[in-house]
């Protein structure tokens, strides 16, 4: 019974925490510009994520190390510092995008521009980190995040063409707008396969004191939680394909995405969208700030636990305090959160090898994992998807820059 509850809670929090501004903006853009054609990007991204999340949980449960711990120990400080720099820069941009997402949700609700929200929003995120515990952040916010299920309801209510959608699950090439198609595909992959989720998940396994007996639970949570999450992203894409595309709208502002559910759910669609984004971005902002602090603390061997009083892990708390404070600055300067989102998602995809290749080494390490190390299926699935994302990113990001 207790195990069943744990599994249920794990799945629910994974689903509630799945969507954030990156996955919503990229999926909405894909649907508006290319109909169902880019569903495959969400599909293979989610499969890769299932494997990665399962691995992160298994790694920490068996080795009692977080991924970052092991990365520093195995690859040494010089290599670690390169990964640290890359990951923290990208995660910081994502954090800016998430804070912006909260601000934009408040903007469409109240009419007050998002730059005005930058300081209050950062303060609330910081306060939740300062006062909250790991359980509050992991469970509380994710439970609220279940409101994002409305995207799937909206998609179903619009009576999608299931055959067309199924065809979208197979990768296809686009004739006209190759550069844009490739760029959105890369951004979707970057939004779906988020490395910060792995760091967060593996630190969570240590905070919750998992051991080898958690391997089956971890597997079930990863498979169901992440695939239901992927379905939410697909819901956004389908809704956008059915509601936004017929109007000829090419999404590049949040105001346009806000119309996503107004046709499917006339009465509540607009407000549900705003609240969903608010909660989803808040959850993601908390997770990313934590992931960045974990990265520093574990890499340098500081005390870390989200559940301690701040002065007991001073450097850990200092890190997220500074990061959240600095992340408010671009928003105060009117940086467009949707632009930041698209760039940071593409950069995430481009830097995936930096995060994932060392991780694959660790997952095959007999010293850390013994008999629980990866089999060839896990290695090849993750390896292939990362290779695809990287190649796509290297080709399409320069094309996008040249295209303006």
């Amino acid at each position, binding site marked *: 019974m207790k195990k069943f509850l744990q599994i249920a809670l794990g799945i629910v929090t994974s689903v509630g925490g799945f969507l954030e501004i990156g996955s919503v903006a990229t999926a909405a853009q894909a649907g508006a510009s290319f109909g169902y054609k880019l569903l495959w990007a969400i599909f293979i991204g989610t499969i890769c994520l299932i494997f990665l999340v399962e691995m992160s949980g298994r790694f920490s449960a068996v080795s009692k190390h977080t991924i970052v711990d092991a990365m520093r120990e195995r690859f040494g400080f010089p290599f670690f510092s390169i990964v640290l720099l890359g990951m923290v820069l990208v995660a910081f941009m994502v954090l800016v995008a998430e804070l912006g997402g909260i601000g934009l949700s408040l903007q469409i609700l109240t009419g007050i521009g998002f730059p005005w929200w930058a300081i209050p929003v950062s303060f609330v995120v910081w306060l939740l980190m300062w006062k909250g515990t790991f359980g509050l952040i992991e469970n509380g916010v994710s439970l609220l995040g279940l409101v994002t299920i409305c995207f799937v309801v909206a998609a179903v209510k619009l009576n999608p063409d299931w055959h067309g959608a199924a065809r979208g699950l197979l990768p296809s090439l686009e004739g006209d707008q190759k550069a844009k198609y490739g760029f959105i595909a890369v951004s979707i992959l970057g939004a779906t396969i988020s490395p910060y989720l792995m760091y967060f998940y593996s630190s969570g396994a240590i905070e919750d004191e998992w051991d080898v007996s958690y391997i089956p639970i971890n597997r079930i949570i990863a498979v169901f939680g992440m695939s239901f999450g992927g379905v939410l992203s697909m819901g956004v894409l389908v809704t956008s394909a059915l509601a936004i595309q017929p109007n000829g709208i090419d999404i590049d502002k949040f*105001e*346009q995405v806000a119309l996503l559910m107004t046709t499917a759910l006339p009465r509540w669609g607009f407000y549900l969208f705003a609240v969903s984004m608010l909660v989803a971005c808040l959850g993601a902002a908390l997770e990313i700030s934590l992931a960045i602090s974990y990265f520093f603390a574990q890499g340098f061997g500081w005390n870390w636990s989200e559940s301690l009083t701040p002065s007991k892990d001073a450097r850990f708390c200092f890190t997220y305090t500074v990061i959240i404070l600095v992340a408010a600055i671009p928003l105060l300067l009117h940086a467009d959160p949707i632009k930041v989102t698209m760039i940071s998602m593409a950069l995430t995809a481009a830097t995936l090898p930096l995060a994932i290749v060392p991780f694959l080494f660790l997952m095959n390490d007999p010293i850390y994992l013994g008999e629980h190390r990866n089999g060839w299926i896990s290695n090849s699935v993750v390896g292939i998807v990362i290779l695809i994302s990287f190649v796509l990113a290297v080709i399409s990001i320069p094309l996008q820059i040249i295209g303006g």
Partner: protein
Amino acid sequence: MRTKRLLVLSLILAAGCKPPTPAEQMDSVLSWIGTAGMAGDAWLRHTTPDTYTRQTFELSSKTLGQISKDLLESPPTMVDPAALDRVLSETSKRITRMAALIGAKNAPDFARQLDSLRNDQKTVKALADSIEAKQ
């Protein structure tokens, strides 16, 4: 040595940053007219708050104005620039007017303007198609 190479690379990239083609600009114009149309529909069905709708209309008209200005600086040769200018400025003005009607909560007038906006949309679409066809 390395900085020099970086400088050259960024220069190439900057030079490669070509401005959007007229066809692409027409697509953005259509996208923003579509946005106003969809937001208008939603407002008439009482599904979106006034402030948001008004701001979206203002944003649409502002963006439209910006794109038309860029577009008419080097007008596409395939269409009559005067006709293009006329329909674009008319649409932009209409959207501004609609934003004011939202403030006044004048739904009947707003509905009429929305119908005219749909007509503008068709005209622009036809112009966009002829630009794309001749490219």
